[in-house]
Structures are given as C-alpha cells and as structure tokens.
C-alpha cells in the first residue's frame, strides 16, 4: 500500500510504485478532475501541485511523491471561489474545459511564486495546451488576479 496525502486527506492506495500519480488519482481514487491529455508531459492537462509546485502527474511515478502534500483541482477551494477561479468565471475562460483543471493548477502555482507575473513570465511558465485556444482570456484573467 502507498500512503498519500491529497487535498489534506490521507489515502492508502494499492498501486504499482511506478504507476503515474495521474492514474492513481483517476483510476484508483476516482478523482477525475485531473485530466489525461498526452501521457508525456507535453500538454499539462494533468497538472497538480506537489508541495505547492506544479507537476505533470502523467509522468510522476506515485512512488516519487512520498509524503508530499498533493493538491488537485478538487482541493483548490471548496466552493470554486478562489480568486483565480472567480477570475476564470468572470473572463469566461473555458470553452470545452478539458484542459482547464491543469491550466488553473499551473497558474495557481505560478502566482504563488510570482504574484504579479509579467507577460514574459506567463509565457515561460504556462506551457499548457488548450486546443480551444483560450489563451487570450487566460492571460487577461491572470493579470486581473495579479491586480487584486
């Protein structure tokens, strides 16, 4: 059994040590807010926080997480009303929405270390793929949160 702390709760999971965290979350724990997009850390749909740092969970073996604190989109806020989520709604960012869990988690991690990121810093840090092309609103929403 592997012991994990996810969104503040303890979980014991029967999984291979090399199973990526993404699939532990989705298939073992039924936490499906974190998405599968590519499996090779290219798209970022699977982004979660490990000790507050954005990680692409599709290539993160569960054994590598240890006793770190894992935060998923489900744990970002209880009612979906964090400043970032509110800005996302205000700007009507999502379209299909599939990539947005990962995008929001990536941006949230960025804002933790750079509360007022420049465009260049956003470009460098946010490499998530959004096939619907919501990037312009993503940027506007980030700047809105940074202003607050």
């Amino acid at each position, binding site marked *: 059994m592997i012991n994990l702390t996810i969104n503040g709760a303890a979980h014991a999971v029967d*999984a*291979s040590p090399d*199973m*990526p965290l*993404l*699939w532990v979350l*989705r*298939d*073992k724990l*039924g936490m*499906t*807010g*974190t*998405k*599968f*997009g*590519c*499996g*090779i850390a*290219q*798209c970022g*749909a699977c982004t979660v926080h490990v000790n507050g740092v954005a990680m692409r969970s599709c290539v993160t073996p569960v054994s590598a997480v240890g006793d770190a604190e894992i935060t*998923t*989109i*489900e744990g*970002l*806020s209880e009612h*979906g009303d964090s400043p970032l*989520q509110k800005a*996302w*709604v205000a700007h*009507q*960012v*999502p*379209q*299909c*929405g*599939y*990539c*947005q*869990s990962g995008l*929001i988690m990536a941006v949230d991690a960025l804002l933790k270390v750079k509360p007022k990121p420049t465009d260049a810093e*956003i*470009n*460098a840090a*946010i*490499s*998530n*793929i*959004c*096939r*619907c*092309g*919501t*990037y*312009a*609103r*993503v*940027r506007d929403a980030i700047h809105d949160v940074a202003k607050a």
Partner: protein
Amino acid sequence: MNKIFKLDRRNFLKASAVAGGGMMLGFHIPAANAAVTKESEVNAWIVVNSDDTVLIRVAHSEMGQGSMTALAQLVAEELDCNWSQVKTAFVDPRLNITRKKVYGGMATVGSRAVRTSQEYLRKAGAGARDMLVRAAAQTWKVPAGECTAKAGVVTHTASKRTLKYGALAEAAAKLAPSADVALKDPATWTIAGQPKMRLDMQDKVMGKAVYAIDIMLPDMLFAAIAQSPVFGGKLKSYDEAAIKNFKGVRQVVTLENAVAVVGDSYWEAQRAVRALPVVWDDAGNGKVSSASIAQFLDEGLKMDGAPVARNDGDVAKAMTTAVKTVSAEYRVPYLSHAAMEPMNCTVRFTDDGLDIWAPTQNAEAILNAAARASGLDPLKINVNLTYSGGGFGRRGGAAAGDYVDQAVLIAKAVGKPVKMIWSREEDIQHDFYRPISSAKMTAGLDASGMPVAWNTRISGHSILTTANPSALKDNMDVGFLVLFADNVYDVPNMKVDFALRKTHVPVGYWRSVNHSQNAYFRECFVDEMALAAGQDPYEYRRKLLHKAPKQLAVLEAAAKAADWGKPLPAGQFRGIAQIDGYGSYVAAVAEISMKPDGSPKVHRVVTSVDCGYVVNPDTVRAQLEGATAWALTALLYNEITLKDGRVEQGNFDRYRMLLAADMPKVEVVLVPSGGFWGGIGEPGSPPVGPAVVNAMLAATGKPSRSQPLIKRGGAASA
C-alpha cells in the same frame, strides 16, 4: 450507483419517474435520461418545476462552443422565464425516436446548432409561455389577453394578481398548444442577444464538469488499444506470452483491425498493449508515403478532363487579352483534430440493453453505432451524455462510430463494464484527417490591374470519399471547391475544376472543413494579384467585392478596426483576408513581424464578423478568439505526414500546438446586420491564416505557398 457521482435530485421534479431506470448523474451534469414528469413538462423542450426552476432540454452537444447556453437563451427569451432559474439537460436520443424526432437533428456539426434549430426552439419557448399565460387566465377566469408574462411570473394587469410559473406548470401542461404564437422581434430581446455567463463555467473551473472519460462504474475494467498502424490493415497475430507477467492485465481482446488489452487501470492496460508484439497485414498500403501522395496530387493539378464546377464566360479567350498573368500553386497537408479529450468510450451491458458514455457531437450517431455493434434494439441503448472535451468535427461525422464499435465489442467480450481510452498516439494516428489539397490558380489582369480571367484547379482528397462515397457523382465534390465554386469576387471569366484524389488515408470534417484550405488558396492568390497590379490588397478587394455588400462590410469593419493604411512600428506589416461560410461573413487583419528563421511573429489579429443575429456576443467573441489559435496552429506547425503507409506524428511533441506564448492579441469586432442566422464555430478561423501569410507577403514580397510555415525541426519552409 457509484461513489463518484452522487445522485442529486434536489427538488427539480414534482414526481420521480426516472425514465429507463438508467444511472442519473448529478443535476449539474447534463443527464441524458433526465426524469420526465408529465405534470411539469409544458412541452418537449421545457420542464417547469414546482420551485420555479426551469429545465430546458438541449438536443445538441456542448464541446466548448457554447451552444448549450445559447440554445437555452433562445428558449428562455421566448418563455419569459427568470434566466437565473434556468437549468439544462441533454436530450436522450431515444426520446427523439419515441417522440418522432420532435428534437430535430442532434448532430452538432457545421456550425449549425443555433441556426438550424433557432426557429423551433423559439417557438417552443413562446408556445410554453402562451400555455402558462392561458393557465393563469383560466385560474383567474379572465381573458388571456389581459395577462402578461415576465421573468417567470404571469400578471393580470388590471387586478395586479400574479402567479409564478411553478404554480402554473401542471395546469399549463394540460392545455393544447396554440397553433401559432408570434415570436419576438430580436431587437426587443433581453435574455438572447446578451452576453450571459455560460451555464457550464462554474463546474469547468472546479474540475467538476464530467466528460465521458471521467465515468467510473462499479466493477469496471479499463481497455487500451492498438490499431493497425497502416490504414486499412488487419490484425494478423500477436504474442500474448510477452505480456503474461504484466501486472494488472486481465484479458486480450482482438478486433478485426485492432487488439485491446483489458486491465485493472488504464495505465496498466496501456503499458501492456504497448509492449505487445503484433503482426499486421497492411492491406497493400505499406509503401504509401507523403512523397507518393504529393506526386499523386501534382498529377491531379496537370491532368486533362477534370470535371468542371464553374465556367463563367470564356476564360481561355479572356486570358489572351490579359496584359499580365499571375500563376501560383498552393499546398496544404493532412491535419489531425487532436481534441484534448482523447477518444474514449465506456460500455456497460445490462440485463436487456447497454449503457454507453462517449464524447460526441451527435448523440444519435452514438446510439446508432452502439446498436449496430451490439445488435441491440436502439431503444435498449441508454446513451449518457456528458460534456465533450473538444470535438472539432472528429466526433460528429458519418464515420465517427469507430471508437464506439470498439468499446461495445470489447465490453461484450469481457462481460464487465469497460472504459476504453485511446492513447494520444492512437488519437493522432487514427483520425479522420483534414484533407490534403493543392490548388493551381492562374489569373489574367487587364491594363487596370484587375482580373478579367481566373482559372482554378483543385487537386485533393474529397471528404466524401470517406464520409459518403455515393454522394461523389462524376468525381465531383462541389463542397471541396467552396470559396471558388461560389467565389463572390467579381471576375467576368472564371473557371473552377477538380481533380479528385483518393488515398488510403481516412479523411473527415475538421473545424472549418474545406474553408480551412480554400481560404488560404484564394485569399493569398488575391494578394498575389494585387501585388502584380501594384495595388493595395484591401482596396483591391473592395473593388472586387462591389457586388457583395455583406462581404465588403466585414472587410471594411476589420480594416477600420485595425487602422489599415496607418503606419505600424518599424518591422511590422499587415495582411488582410475575408470569407463567407456557414451562413456568416468574416474578415481578418493580421499584424506580424518576420523572425530571423523566416517565420512570422503574429502580434495582433483583428477579426470582424457578421452572423446576422447574435445570440450570445461573448460566445461569439470566444469562438473567434479560439478560431485564431486554431488557424495559427495549423498555419505555423501542423502537418500529418506518412511513411510506410502510417502516420509519422504521434503526440504533441511532433504534432505541435500553439501555446500561450505564441498567442497574439485578438480583437473581435461584431458587426451583426440582422435578418439572418449565421454559424459561428467554423467561419472564424479561415481568414486568419491567409491574413498572416498576406502580411508576410507585404513584409518580404515573397509568397508562402505551402503549409505549415515551420517544418518539423524548426526551419521555416520556402
């Protein structure tokens, strides 16, 4: 009932007759088999609940384009309900069978959701309002004409008595609908026409929006699949012993052209299927390459006797009068959809039928595919509808049943519920691709520089070869020639013909479909003509559009918003393009500078759109912003190439997507002229690519006649 999705019925129904006994998802999740209570179902589209909430049924798919909200706005507008009390539910496709197609066509393709259903949806809303008003009038024993409805309340004007819709629904449902209820003048709209917040937003920022890939069922197993890498190929043999020690593997299932491994988790199944040695029969297609296909298309550009779609005047004769001739060949590659939610399907056989979940643009197509694959009566098939993580045409066409067929057959073989997920590699390598196409255009210009003759040969792989071969009469597909066969530029002598090319690659509908390549061919060639004539490409188009006022209006709107003609910072250049399509008119101006590698840096894109009536202006803006990213991704990066009969790209490392860093500033100018209903999902992207390429022409004086501009490895193409 599984532990992930708790049944949350709330108080939205007066009774609890759950149709079909299938699994109900939470109310915020559009449930296919939404419960029906006769008392409160005012008509097929509208259920008014005792707490005054209104359930509006949506027959089209929500894959990001926003029509779930827009369609509800149209109904709510005429219903005069309180928008904050509106909920939606997707229509169970079985209901569309048993109710004799009352919900119309459910295919969510061709930017058609709003424009093909707006009339019957508005009538449904108006008809229900009329019934609610008459129910109130009966209660008060007053003429209905003395009552008005607003925000979910009926008022008897004289006595100031009021009744809420929730209290009237049961009586209203018993009334016969009126034969003809007048619809509102769109100028008076207060719900439609407004930038209402999308109804799916909150769930989508919380990770709570449910996609088919998220479905978890008790006792469910997971399947990963390997399909014949060469299109048309078949499974010959495989060596199961090679994976016999793999953990979490339950079973190998063989299909005609694929092999699936079923396991305890998707990852374990996928790891095993990737390690499984498989021998394929390539059906004789194993030598096809991009080079051989390119040669085949080039032969099409030269061949004699191509069927003619349009032949105005006498092109050959007019060419002899030209003082200058412009000629060019343009080329585009096959493209993959790459929706972010990979293809997947979950199937659970029940005592007498099956439950199915799949991302789709057409719930009826899922139903039919599942019926075909299982041999079950369609009425025994419970299609559970969810949001779709993108679609872009991949999940809506006639051939879209491939993933459904597979999951049904696998679940049948396993005897347990199975969720099948394609890896991203399977997704990109087993698509129905945007067709490869080439165009050879020749124009003859007169002394004033304007074209007197324009000859176009298109050589390409018609979608009908895959989607509907019987529609290909005499090797002609006029749809493949869109923007040429119906070219609105005023050129007196115009000829358009077509060399049909069919390869073993499956082709299909990809966002903007044939507009995606033909806008590039046509609009860049117009700039080549303007350059040869020494004229400004915007003014040149204005002259050619003197008989096309709507196209001219969006062109002028985009040019004005983009300050066409005014100076730009040093090193920046503008390009312009315009198209009509899907009932709408769109123009774009791009501002670029050239990078040292010869590719463009796109700084700003201004697009203008006339879609007639606007149902949700923010959704229109979002679609045009997204369409800009879609267009730039294809223009800059995308190319599906073939070697040994198979696709060379497999994942986003080799099939690159536009990222935030590449996204230009986008300004959308809405210039709705009213009086018609145009689509919005598809027409936004076609003018963006050519506007960028035309800006490159302005920058360098050299045309860019093939896509993508950046070939794999980073170097810009010639």
